[in-house]
C-alpha cells in the first residue's frame, strides 16, 4: 500500500521539522483541491487539517477525485503554532497505521451529515455534507435466521429490521453509535471506520510510541464529542460513541503495551447515543477483572489516572478486538499477572459468560444450542443419546440462548456474564444428557425422553393416547398420504 500523509501548512507547530514522507501544502484547508495532485499514485491517505476548519466534506471530495475511498482517509486535527511537534509526528504515525489497515467500504457504508443550520435560509446554502461511516450487515455471517437479535436489542434508534433473511440496517435511521458492531456475536456487522483490524493496528502503533520512553496512556473518546482533555503522552482513539466500548476493548490495549486506558465518557452531555451508563459499566467491569487478577486498577479509569503504572505486556493476542476476542484477552491478562487461584467474578458488562441448565426443567430440545451464534452451546446426538454441551471459551455472553428456551419460565437456562478462568481454560462440559426416542417405523429420532415427558405433563391424562402415538412415530410416519393419520397401533401406510 502506498500511503501518503499530507498536512496543511497553516496548522503546523512552529518547531515542525517535517519528515520526508509528509507532504506539506500551503493553504490546504482553504483550497482542498490542492490535495488531488499530491495523491497521485497513492492508495491511502492521512490528511492533517486545521483544528477550526469546516472543510472535511471538501477534503473528502478531493480524496474521491483522486480515486480513493474517502471513508478510509485518516483526518488528523493539527495543533497549530503552539503545538507539540513530537506528539504530532507520533499522532500522524498512528493515523497512518490505522489508515493502512483500512479494509474498504461499500455503498451501504456512507452516511452524509448535513452541517447544522446556523442561519436563516441556510438550507439553500448548506456546506457540502461530510460523510461518516455507517455499519453494514454481512448477510452471510448474520445468524438472525437462527433467532439472534443482538443488534436490534442494543440499537437505540430502532434501525434494524428483518424480513425473513439477515438483519437489515436502515442507514437513514442509524445514528452511527456503533453499539451493534460490538454487540454482534459473529462480527457480521462491520463499520469500515473502526474494524477489529484497524483498531488493533492503531492500538499497536500507539503502544509503539511508548517504547524507550514514558509509558503511554490511551484515551477512548467519542468522535462527535469535544476533544478529550489529555494527559502527557496520551493518545486519543476516536470511536463513534463510547457506549460501543466493551470490557474487552477497554482491556485489550493493555496487552499491546499501552500502560493505561482511559474512557472519556460523555454520557452526561445528553447525547442521544449514550446516556445509559454503558461506558461506565465497561470501565467498572474492566477494573473488576484487574482487581481479581491482582493488577493495578489505575490501568483503567474513567478519568485521568492518579498514576500511570508500568505496561503489562507487549503482545496483543490475534483477534483481540474481534467478536470472540474476550477469552484470549482475559487469559493473556491472567498470564501477564501470573494470577493463581482466581475467584469467579460476575458483572453485567463482562464479555465472557457461563451458561447453566436446570436438569429437571430442561427438556433437551436443543433450541438454545440452535440459537447460540458462536457455537458455545452444542447439541450432539449419537447412538440414541443426546448431549447439550457448553464451551465457556466460546461464550461471548450475548445471552441469545436464554429467550429461545421454551422452558424459560421454569428456569431451565441461565446465562451469567462471568469471568471464570478455570472454565475458560477447561474443555467443554456436558450440561445435560438425555436419550432420544426413535420412530418405530423409520428409526429417525422423535424427541428426547424429557421432552416427551414434559409434553405428557402438559397434555394431561385425557390425551394419553395422542402422547402414546407421538412417542412411537415421528411426524412424517404419523401422517400418511392424503393426511390419513396413524393409530397408536400402526404407522400410516406410505
Amino acid at each position, binding site marked *: 500500500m502506498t500511503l501518503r500523509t499530507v498536512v496543511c501548512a497553516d496548522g503546523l507547530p512552529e518547531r515542525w521539522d517535517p519528515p520526508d514522507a509528509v507532504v506539506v501544502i500551503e493553504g490546504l484547508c482553504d483550497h482542498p483541491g490542492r490535495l488531488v495532485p499530491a495523491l497521485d499514485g497513492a492508495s491511502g491517505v492521512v490528511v492533517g487539517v486545521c483544528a477550526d476548519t469546516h472543510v472535511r*466534506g471538501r477534503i473528502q*471530495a*478531493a480524496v*474521491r*477525485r483522486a*480515486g480513493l475511498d*474517502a*471513508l478510509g482517509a485518516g483526518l488528523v486535527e493539527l495543533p497549530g503554532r503552539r503545538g507539540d511537534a513530537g506528539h504530532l509526528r507520533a499522532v500522524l504515525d498512528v493515523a497512518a497505521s490505522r489508515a493502512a489497515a483500512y479494509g474498504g467500504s461499500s*455503498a*451501504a457504508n*456512507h*452516511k*452524509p*451529515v*448535513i452541517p*447544522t*443550520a446556523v442561519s*436563516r*435560509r*441556510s*438550507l*439553500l*446554502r*448548506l*456546506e*457540502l*455534507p461530510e*460523510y461518516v461511516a455507517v455499519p453494514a450487515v454481512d448477510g452471510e455471517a448474520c445468524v438472525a435466521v437462527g433467532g439472534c437479535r443482538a443488534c436490534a436489542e442494543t440499537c437505540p434508534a430502532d434501525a434494524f429490521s428483518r424480513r425473513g433473511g439477515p438483519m437489515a440496517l436502515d*442507514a*437513514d435511521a442509524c445514528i452511527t453509535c456503533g453499539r451493534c458492531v460490538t454487540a454482534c456475536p459473529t462480527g457480521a456487522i462491520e463499520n469500515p471506520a473502526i474494524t477489529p483490524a484497524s483498531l488493533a493496528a492503531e492500538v499497536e502503533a500507539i503502544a509503539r510510541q511508548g517504547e524507550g520512553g514514558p509509558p503511554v496512556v490511551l484515551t477512548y473518546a467519542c468522535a462527535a464529542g469535544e476533544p478529550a482533555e489529555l494527559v502527557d503522552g496520551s493518545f486519543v482513539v476516536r470511536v463513534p460513541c463510547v457506549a460501543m466500548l466493551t470490557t474487552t476493548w477497554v482491556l485489550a490495549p493493555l496487552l499491546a503495551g499501552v500502560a493505561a486506558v482511559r474512557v472519556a465518557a460523555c454520557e452526561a452531555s445528553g447525547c442521544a447515543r449514550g446516556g445509559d451508563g454503558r461506558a461506565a459499566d465497561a470501565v467498572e467491569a474492566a477494573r473488576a477483572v484487574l482487581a481479581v487478577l491482582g493488577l493495578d486498577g489505575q490501568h483503567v479509569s474513567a478519568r485521568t489516572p492518579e498514576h500511570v503504572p508500568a505496561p503489562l505486556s507487549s503482545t496483543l493476542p490475534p483477534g483481540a478486538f474481534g467478536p470472540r476476542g474476550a477469552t484470549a484477552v482475559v487469559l493473556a491478562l491472567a498470564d501477564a499477572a501470573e494470577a493463581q487461584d482466581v475467584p469467579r467474578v460476575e458483572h453485567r458488562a463482562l464479555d465472557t459468560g457461563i451458561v447453566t441448565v436446570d436438569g429437571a426443567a430442561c427438556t433437551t430440545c436443543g433450541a438454545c444450542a440452535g440459537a447460540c451464534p458462536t457455537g458455545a452451546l452444542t447439541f450432539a446426538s449419537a447412538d440414541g443419546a443426546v448431549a447439550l454441551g457448553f464451551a465457556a471459551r466460546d461464550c461471548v455472553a450475548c445471552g441469545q440462548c436464554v429467550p429461545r428456551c421454551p422452558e424459560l419460565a421454569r428456569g431451565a437456562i441461565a446465562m451469567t456474564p462471568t469471568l471464570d478462568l478455570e472454565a475458560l481454560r477447561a474443555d467443554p462440559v456436558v450440561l445435560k444428557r438425555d436419550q432420544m426416542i426413535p420412530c418405530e417405523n423409520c428409526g429417525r429420532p422423535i424427541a428426547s425422553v424429557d421432552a416427551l415427558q414434559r409434553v405428557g405433563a402438559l397434555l394431561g391424562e385425557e390425551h394419553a393416547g395422542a402422547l402414546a402415538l407421538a412417542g412411537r412415530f415421528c411426524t412424517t410416519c404419523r401422517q400418511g398420504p392424503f393426511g390419513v393419520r396413524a393409530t397408536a397401533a400402526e404407522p400410516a401406510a406410505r
Partner: protein
Amino acid sequence: MTAGGWLAATRLRQGVYRLCGAAFLPPEDDRVALLASSEGALEALEPDAFPFAAALRRFLGAVRDAPPTDVLEGEYIRLFEAGVDGALCPPTESFHTTAARHGGPAEVDAVLESTYADIGIVHRSGTVVTPDHISVELEAMAFLCAEEAGAREADDLAAVADSLRRQHRFLREHLARWAPVFLADVRRTSRLEVYRDLAEATEAFVRHDHVLVGALVRAARQEVGA
C-alpha cells in the same frame, strides 16, 4: 456550499435518476449512444462531492466499451424478462414487496399511479413498462428533483422543503425499500459488466440519496419548522 452548489447537486441527482432510469429500459442503439455521451454532462456537475461518483464513472466506462446492442438485448431479456439460467431479476416493485405474487402487482400499481398523480405525473398506458418498473420510479424521482431545482432557482425555501419531503416519502415507501435487493440480484447474476456496473451505480446512488434526502428533510424541519 453555495446556493448554486446545491442547485448543481440537485441537477446532478436529477440527471443520475434519469440516466439510471433510461439504462433500465430495453437497450436500443439511440438510447445506448445517449448514455455513452452523458459522461461530459456528469463531470460538469462535479460528482466527486458524493461517494457514488466512482461507481457512476465505472458504469459510463462500461457503456463506452459495451458489446453491440443485440448482445445487450439478449442479456436484458435474460435478466429482466425471461429469467434464463436462474437469472430471475424482475425490475418491478411488486415482485419484491408482495408476499403473494398473484393479485399483488395490481395493488402496487394502483398505489403508485395514485402517488404519481399526487406528484403531478401520469404513467402512460400502453408503454412497455408497468408503473412499478424501476425505470418509472427512477423517472418519478427525477421529476421531483427537477421540481426541487426549480424551487432552489426561485429561492423558495418552503417549496424546497416540500419537495424534499415528497422525495423522502417516495424513497422510503417505494424505491429505497426494494431497489437495493433487486440491484444486488442483478449484480450477482449479470454476465455483462455493463449491467453489473449499472446495478452497482444505481444501488450506490439510491442508498445514498435516501439517506441524503432524509438528512436534508431534517435540516429543513429545523430551518422552516416544516
